[in-house]
């Protein structure tokens, strides 16, 4: 204690420029015993430690938030309205079948009368990709058309192009079980089985994988063979009784889908359809190799979005698509029906996405055909039955999926735009607030979303375009996309590893 004044004195001289003062500078031991300095460094340590602990806690909380909360309320069903879904009432099936069109001329007549449009449902699908290109118009050039067709090509080669229009039992999605191994592999536990399935899904290139119980409410019943105009029964025609549905998500390229509704965007749509056909086929083959019966499916057999939700992969959005945290609606969904039931099932989860959609509506604003309900519409477009224009006209909605609480969009108007556009659209994907590249600040928004109050959801929805995201119908995005291959020789950022730009 007696030498403290001297130390204080030496401490005071530290900052001087007097060379003679250097002789009086304290040594390291003296510095450590200086109570002022000790107190200073104690506070630095406490403050820095508290900040780091707080940061680590916030990071951990965000990770937990991104797991989602188990959702007990899905699905909410109005039993008076709900009934099994006839595949023939799905727009894509109807527009692909000459027989169905001949059987239901009133459907076409009603659409033409109400929408005041002369529209050829059947030939629309055929003519969609034969619209002439214009090389002066970004997004609608010969190069964009070529990308579009190349994207779909593997699915065509695999014989499953029709599965996009719900044709069951196609090349990659064959019902054939002749390669089934006789010996059944026995898993150590249900968790081991689930982990193995998800590991295989990762190898095949899926961005996410979940496992749901087979649920007849989501299966088209009866199934319909478009090519042979034949009704198919789950009990008589399907090769086995499925117990489980494995759901695989394939991500689409961020920069490419951003060009929507240009033909360019259809390049990644077609490619992801091809990829999901391949991945689902691989998963089915993997299961059959272990002695379990399995059939893969694209859009066919069942409602992909509902199964995606049941498998805990995301929530249903206003755009009627599965919105998966991290990739948003920029995913395509494949399913594998199997009789393996010794697995740990996933369950629906809540990330506050549907709640967010109630306040948002950016997809509806971006939709070129006004097929998606706006937040200003009755009940925000969210209910047990459609509220869109003409939905109260008998026969207009084809009773498609009535009775489930969700957003209802007019699929016929959506398809009508595809035909006029000369290719699929994707504007509702590109404009979605949840469609973001893989960077920390988007994960941060996703993590705080469940605890954000409604008014903040509205603010976030407005901030999204204000910050430059989600604009559609923009030729500059097409030009940007066609330059996104720069640096691919070395690919130092591992671009497009999971379908996002610049970062894996």
């Amino acid at each position, binding site marked *: 204690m007696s030498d403290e004044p001297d130390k204080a004195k030496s401490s005071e001289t530290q900052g001087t420029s007097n060379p003679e003062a250097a002789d009086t500078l304290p040594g390291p031991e003296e510095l450590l015993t200086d109570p*002022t300095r000790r*107190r*200073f460094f104690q*506070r*630095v340590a406490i*403050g*820095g430690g508290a*900040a780091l602990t707080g940061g680590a806690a916030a990071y951990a909380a965000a990770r937990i938030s991104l797991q989602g909360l188990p959702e007990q309320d899905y699905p909410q069903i109005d039993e008076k309205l709900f009934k099994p879904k006839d595949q023939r009432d799905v727009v894509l099936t109807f527009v692909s079948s000459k027989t169905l069109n001949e059987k239901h001329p009133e459907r076409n007549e009603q659409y033409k009368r109400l929408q005041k449009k002369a529209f050829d449902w059947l030939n629309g699908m055929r003519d969609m990709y034969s619209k002439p290109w214009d090389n002066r118009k970004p997004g609608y050039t010969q190069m964009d058309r070529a990308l579009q067709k190349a994207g779909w090509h593997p699915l065509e080669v695999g014989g499953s192009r029709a599965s996009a229009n719900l044709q069951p039992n196609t090349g990659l999605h064959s019902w054939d079980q002749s390669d089934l191994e006789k010996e059944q592999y026995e898993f150590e536990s249900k968790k081991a089985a689930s982990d193995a399935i998800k590991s295989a899904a990762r190898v095949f290139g899926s961005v996410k994988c979940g496992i749901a119980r087979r649920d007849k409410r989501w299966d088209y019943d009866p199934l319909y063979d478009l090519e042979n105009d034949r009704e198919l029964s789950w009990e008589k025609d399907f090769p086995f009784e499925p117990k489980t549905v494995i759901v695989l998500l394939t991500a689409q390229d961020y920069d490419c889908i951003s060009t929507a509704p240009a033909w360019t965007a259809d390049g990644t749509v077609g490619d992801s359809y091809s990829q999901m056909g391949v991945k689902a086929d691989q998963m089915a083959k993997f299961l059959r190799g272990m002695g379990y019966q399995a059939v893969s499916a694209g859009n066919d057999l069942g409602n992909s979005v509902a199964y995606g939700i049941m498998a805990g992969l995301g929530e249903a959005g206003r755009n009627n698509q599965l919105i998966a945290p991290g990739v948003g609606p920029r995913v395509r969904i494949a399913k594998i029906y199997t009789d393996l039931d010794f697995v740990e099932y996933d369950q629906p989860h809540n990330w506050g996405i549907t709640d967010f959609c109630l306040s948002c509506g950016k997809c509806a604003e971006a939709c070129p055909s006004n097929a998606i309900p706006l937040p200003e519409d009755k009940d925000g477009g969210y209910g047990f039955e459609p509220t869109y224009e003409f939905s109260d006209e008998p026969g207009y909605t084809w009773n498609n999926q009535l009775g489930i609480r969700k957003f209802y969009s007019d699929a016929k108007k959506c398809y009508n735009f595809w035909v006029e556009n000369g290719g699929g659209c994707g504007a509702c994907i590109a404009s979605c607030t949840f469609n973001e*590249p893989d*960077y*920390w*600040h988007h994960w941060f928004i996703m993590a705080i979303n469940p605890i954000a109050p409604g008014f903040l959801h509205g603010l976030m929805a407005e901030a999204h375009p*204000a*910050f*430059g*995201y989600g604009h559609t119908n923009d030729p500059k995005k097409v030009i*940007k996309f066609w330059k996104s291959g720069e640096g691919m020789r070395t690919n130092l950022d591992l671009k497009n590893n999971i379908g996002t*730009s*610049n*970062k894996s």
Partner: protein
Amino acid sequence: MELMQWFFMGVLFTLSVFALAYLSMVVKLEWYTWAGLITGVIMVLFGIGWAGASFLEGYPQSGSLGLAIFSGGGVVLMTLTWRHLVTPALSRHAK
């Protein structure tokens, strides 16, 4: 680039901790003054992190707005706190 951004943020964080610890040595401040200063530092760092990620993903508009709103907001908050709460406290301390 991303590594440089995190490194720069780490340097800023360290300097901020040292600055606040030094301030705590020279003057006694109310809890709300500390809240203002610490929130300001967090906002500045958040804005830099946001902007860095936005520029890297190719959205300069998001980066610029992130800097203006988050970091700018943090600077404004710290300035107001300093002028109206820290400076008077320093004056009282000097007397």
